[in-house]
Structures are given as C-alpha cells and as structure tokens.
C-alpha cells in the first residue's frame, strides 16, 4: 500500500543561544489519500514543526534536520532543490494557518490576492519567466479565467456574494470569512494535501463550528486529504478519522478517532482526555497532568513523558519505547503495553 505522505524517524534540531533544542526526536507519521488525520498535542510538542517539514517551511538555519525522511507520493522531499520545491508546493500542497488576520495582505483586495494565487499555481511548469508572464499575448484571457476561478473558489468556501465581495479588502471581512478566503487560496491549485494548522483557534465557537463543517464538506466534495493540527481534542473528535497524539517531539499514540477516545492507552493521552471539562465531571473532579512540558534542550532520557507519568518503571528512564500495536490500527509507544504486543 502506498502512502500519500510518509514521515519516517524525523529528527529536527534548532540552534539557539541557550543550546541545541531537540524539537523532533523521531517522528513517524503516514497518511493515505483521503485521510483526515488530526495531530494533537500541547504547546511545544512539535506538531506544527512536523507539519511545516512537509512544505519545508522551517527556517534552516537555525533549524536542522539531522535524520529521517519525508516522502510524498513516494518522492523524497528533503533532497529537492528550492525551485523544485516551489513547484511541488504549488502543485500538491495547500496550507491554512491559525491567524487569518496576519496571513492576508491588508493593502490588496481579495481579488488581487486570490487571482495571484490562482495564476501562480497555473504558471507552474510553464517556460515563461515569471516577470514577463503578465505581458504574454494570452495574459488577458489568463487573468479572466483566474478571476472566474477565484469567484468559484469563494463560492466553494461559502462566502456569500463572491462576485461582488472579491473587490473588498481583508479588513472588510470578519474573522470567519477571512479564514474562508485563506481556505479558498489554499484550494487554488487543487492540492493533494491540505495542512490546517490550528485553523479555528482564533475563532469563536459558532464560527469554529462553521469552519469545521466547511472542511468536512470539502473533504467529501473534493476528496481532500487533510492534516489537521490542533490542541483541542473536541475539534479532533468532530472532524477527524484518525488521530496522532504528540508529546515532546514524538508521536506517542495513534488510532482511529473512536478507538482513541473510547480506549486511550498511553498515560499522556489519558491525562489529556481527563483534563477536558466534560459533561459528567463535577466540581473538583477534573484531573490535570502534574508537572509541565520538559525543556527540549535537555530532555529527559528514555520516554520523554516519564517524569510526569504515574506508572514510571526503570526501563522508561533508560530507553525510548517503540510503538507497539494495542488494537486494530492502534499503536502506542509505552512500555506498559510491551508485553501485550
């Protein structure tokens, strides 16, 4: 079975004044076409860094990939040249971010920004040098087509009055609508993979519900593959099919969404689920996870969760646990389940 995306044993480090920060320490993650995978974890666990390593948007230096592979459609991405990478991003990837305000240029109308995105995608692989593209004989027609495509994208992402509102500036849109514009932009090149990095974190709950519904409907309409990064377990439960839980630079548990919530195995996953105030929890009944996220300059040896874990054994301090199967398509990296696997 071939995977659309395959990340193997990825190690990423950052040079800082305080020392070498080991951000990712052996991330394994794979996605098939049509998957909707949620990548969950708390601040600093490396979920965004894992996602950014696919379009290779991590600044290097100070970043450095010291080991591992990232394959897309069987192609190795890490060895591509920067110009190949540009074409690759345009053809295969779409990305949306947390903050819809800073990702739109306030000086240009939505039309200019969306049409630009469409033209850029379409120009990939053609011989015309970028700066002359606008003067080619067919430029007028290209722009007209791109404009139509932009309006269509706005309709697809549920922006009412797209043909009129396309002439508006970003500040004339609300937060939810701006996020839709960004989704439209990400879809401009019919991407194979949509990476959504905390797409609803800055939005109100009612708007969040709208955006999640939009993403779900795009998945069923266009057959998108989505990598959804979030810290919110509720968002995952609502919109993903599979979940990977990250802690301090490693994937510690992976399972189909129902299985993960019904039958969480890793102590960290259990703690995370227990920390969400749910319906049945009464006063005083909420459990946090004691301690805090480890310092990644000098991370704890062995399992990085062991200083906060209630079930720590001698082996946890010494060696890194490898993922073992604990159910159907359910794996976890924890020595508590070694015997079962």
């Amino acid at each position: 079975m071939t995977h659309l995306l395959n990340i193997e044993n990825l190690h990423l480090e950052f040079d800082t004044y305080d020392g070498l920060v080991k951000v990712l320490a052996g991330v394994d993650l794979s996605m098939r076409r049509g998957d909707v995978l949620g990548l969950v974890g708390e601040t600093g666990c490396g979920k965004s860094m894992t996602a950014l390593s696919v379009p290779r948007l991590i600044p290097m230096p100070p970043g450095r990939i010291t080991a591992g592979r990232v394959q897309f459609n069987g192609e190795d991405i890490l060895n591509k040249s920067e110009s190949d990478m540009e074409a690759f991003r345009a053809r295969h990837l779409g990305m949306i971010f947390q903050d819809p305000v800073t990702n739109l240029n306030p000086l240009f109308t939505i039309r200019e920004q969306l049409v630009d995105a469409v033209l850029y995608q379409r120009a990939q692989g053609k011989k015309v040098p970028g700066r002359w593209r606008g003067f080619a004989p067919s430029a007028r027609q290209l722009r007209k087509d791109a404009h139509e495509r932009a309006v269509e994208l706005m309709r697809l992402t549920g922006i009412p009055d797209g043909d009129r509102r396309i002439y508006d500036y970003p500040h004339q849109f609300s937060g939810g609508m701006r996020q839709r514009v960004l989704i439209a932009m990400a879809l401009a090149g019919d991407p194979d993979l949509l990476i959504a990095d905390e797409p609803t974190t800055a939005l109100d709950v009612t708007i969040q519900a709208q955006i999640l519904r939009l993403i779900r409907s795009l998945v069923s309409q266009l057959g998108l593959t989505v990598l959804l990064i979030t810290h919110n377990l509720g968002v995952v439960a609502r919109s993903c099919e599979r979940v990977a839980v990250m802690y301090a630079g490693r994937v510690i548990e992976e399972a189909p969404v129902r299985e993960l919530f019904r039958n969480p195995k890793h102590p960290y996953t259990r703690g995370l689920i227990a920390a969400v105030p749910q319906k049945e929890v009464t006063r005083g009944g909420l459990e946090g996870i004691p301690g805090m996220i480890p310092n990644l300059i000098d991370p704890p040896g062995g399992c990085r969760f062991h200083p906060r874990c209630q079930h720590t054994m001698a082996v946890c301090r010494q060696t890194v646990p490898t993922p073992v199967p604990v159910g159907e398509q359910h794996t976890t990296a924890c020595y508590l389940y070694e015997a079962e696997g």
Partner: protein
Amino acid sequence: MSALLEVANLKKYFPVRGGLLNRRLADFRAVDDVSFALQHGKTLGLVGESGSGKTTIGKCILRLLEPTAGSIRYAGADITHLKARDLRRLRSDIQMIYQAPAASLNGRMTVGQIIGEPLWIHESLKGNAARDRVLELMHVVGLKEEHYYRYPHEFSGGQQQRIGIARALAVQPRLLVLDEPTSALDVSVQAQILNLLQDLQDRFDLTYLFISHDLGVVRYMCDEVALLYLGKIVEVAATDVIFEQPKHPYTQALISAIPEPDPDMQREEIILTGDLTLATGGGCPFAPRCHAQKLEQCETLPPPLLTIEPRHAVACHLHVDG
C-alpha cells in the same frame, strides 16, 4: 440573603467619532442594559462570543471603566460613583485576574515584588513582614520559595497565571473578577488552574465572576450562567438548567457548538449562519442569525428579559408566555 454584587441596568456606550472636528457620530453599545445579582460564595459565569461585552462588564464593576448609566451595588453599598479614596478601599475587596498572564505581569519586577506590591499599596507592608506574606501566598498558589527572585519570563503560562492569582489574593479580596483566566493555557494546565481556583474559593470563601467563552469550562466552574449577545443578556439560569433545558435559540446553538471530545455523541448540530453583526432595525439583536421560527415582532420589537421560571430568565419572543 442579599447579594454580594448587584448590577442594575448597566450601560456602557463608547463614542464612535469621525467626520468634521471629530464629532460624536454614534454610540457603540458595548453593554446595553444588563442586570444581574451574584450571591456570596457563588460563581456566576458571563458567557459570550468576542464583542459581546463580557470583559467590559467586568471592567465596569472594578470601575476601570466608567459606566454610562446604571448602578453597581457591592455588599449593599452603591459603588457606581465612588471617589478615588474610597475606590482604593473597594479595590482591596474586588480583584481581577486577566487573560494573558504574560502581559498582565510587569516584566521588570521579580515575582516577590509583583506579589508584594499590593501589600505595600494597601497595607503599607514592607520588609520581612511583607516577605513572609508573599512566601505564604506563593505557597498557597503552588509556587516554590526559590521562585521569589525570578522574573515572569522565566515561567510557563500556567505558572505566570499562578503569580497573577497570588497577586490578586494578596489584599484578601472577597470578589474576584476572572477574565478568561485559562483561555491562553493548554488543557492539562487549564485543569490545574481551574482546580486551584475551586480550592481557593472554598478556602477563602471567595465569590467569582467568571468571564469565559468556553462553555465546557463554565459548566465545570459556575453555579449560574448568564449568556450575553451584543451587550445584552439573552438568558440567565442555574448551570444545569442552561445546559439541560436551554430556551434561547442562541444558547441552544452555542451548546451544540461545544466541541466535546466524544466522537460518538449524538446530537443535533445547530450551525449559525453569519457572525456577530449589529442589527440595524429595532428588533431582537439575534434575529439576523436566528435559526428558530421567526415571529413578526422579532424584526421590530426588542424582546425583554422575562422570568419564565424561578431563577430562569430568557429574552426571546418565543418564550413570552413561559
């Protein structure tokens, strides 16, 4: 039993200026005729989306903003027009905890100075006496002694919030206004802070006004909940009533939008259209987004907040008869 805090017909309008000579063109009604009462030792949740006026209400109670109209009574006394000297005394009774822990702590002061400052201002406490109190407070909120000489940037978000809580507790307040105290924190840390707040409430007999947009957190923390929409209360009731039998269409939609970490949960999902926009007509502010059956008066008449059952009030034309 009389309420510790009573807010009656509170209004806060901000002027919208522009045109020639920067004239006052219109008013932005951030808080528009809000009334509620908070009993001693209880927690009232103020819930709403961004722009609903929840923080403005909190700031008006502390008199960090001057209310445009209405009255605020604290422990039986009217505090709406207190003068500076009395205001200082009031502020040792009412304290606030802010959303962004990093921004609400002075980066150039050590933890000891931050927590000690209110002791000096309100009680003229200095030297070893102050130091002992600060260390005791740090212990209460779960900070260690060696943190005394550190600076805020050396702490994680959760610990910064603990510093903010210790600073608020320093003057032995009776009422705390908690403005989104955990929305900047990760869930595992959020759980720690929420539990700390509950412990402190029991231990020091505190009353909380809990401002939040997260209904899950509100359900866990509050005895009573008031829902705000565009500066007006649309529904107020005991927490279990709000979550079991929500009456206002907005409340129903908000509850259905809580992302519960339970993929098996069967429920009707109400997804509101549009976003928080000012209604132009004189009708119900929620009418443009409402998914419920529309009546004629929805577009023309603002619905009053009516008590439909004891301790349950709704502002909706569909529930006029109870």
